[in-house]
């Protein structure tokens, strides 16, 4: 497996950023890789391994990064679900004939609100986790 130096450096910068490595620290890591490749003429993947493998050396993937796809799907479901239930509940109050799965309008609003709170909690947890990693990061 071989790679282009510019692509490797760009991908490494993005990967480190996704792992909450502070920009100045990521810049130092990437510049040193660029310097080595410029001097040695080596293939980046032969010298440093894949971008993910090399990024692991400095910032192992957090659980939020490892579970990114399921978390994005979960966030989407929570967002869509809460919007559906809240709007449906409100329309149910306006027009009592507007039903959904036999649920009372108040029950739909409560379920929508609970789903929305879950979405906010998930976002808050990911944000706190990200900021903590950023704060604790050091070279």
């Amino acid at each position: 497996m071989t790679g282009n130096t510019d692509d490797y450096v760009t991908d490494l910068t993005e990967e480190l950023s996704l792992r909450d490595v502070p920009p100045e620290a990521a810049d130092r890591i990437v510049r040193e890789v660029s310097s080595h490749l410029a001097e040695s003429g080596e293939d980046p993947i032969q010298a440093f391994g894949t971008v993910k493998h090399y990024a692991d050396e400095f910032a192992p993937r957090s659980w939020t990064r490892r579970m990114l796809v399921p978390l994005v799907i979960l966030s989407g479901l929570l967002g869509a679900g809460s919007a559906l239930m809240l709007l449906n509940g409100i329309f149910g109050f306006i027009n009592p004939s507007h039903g959904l799965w036999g649920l009372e309008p108040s029950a739909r609003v409560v379920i929508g609100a609970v789903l929305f709170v879950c979405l906010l909690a998930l976002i808050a947890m990911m944000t706190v986790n990200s900021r903590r990693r950023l704060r604790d990061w050091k070279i």
Partner: protein
Amino acid sequence: MDESPWPTDWVRVALPGVVLAIVRDEESYGYLIAQRLDAAGFGSVKGSVLYPLLTRLESDGALASTWREGAGGPGRKYYTLTDVGQNRLADYTAAWARFTTSTAAVLAPTKDAQ
């Protein structure tokens, strides 16, 4: 690590002390350290091994670094040994000597085996 006459595990264990010693002898940047290691018989140490090690040593305070811009290039990060690094290297050298002496003593055939 390619073309090393030594098992990879041995090189990995020896590397922190050897890198400190190279930097003690001469202010060095990553690629130069890799060349010095190769010339010393450690083989071609990959960047994926060397640079994280340099980062850890710097993070521990054993190395200090400064960037110098290159003419048209990305520049070089030069490493120097700190006082912490000097002490660590001294400890490492003494421990390594004890370790190799002990290992050699065990590996040497006993009189019964001869």
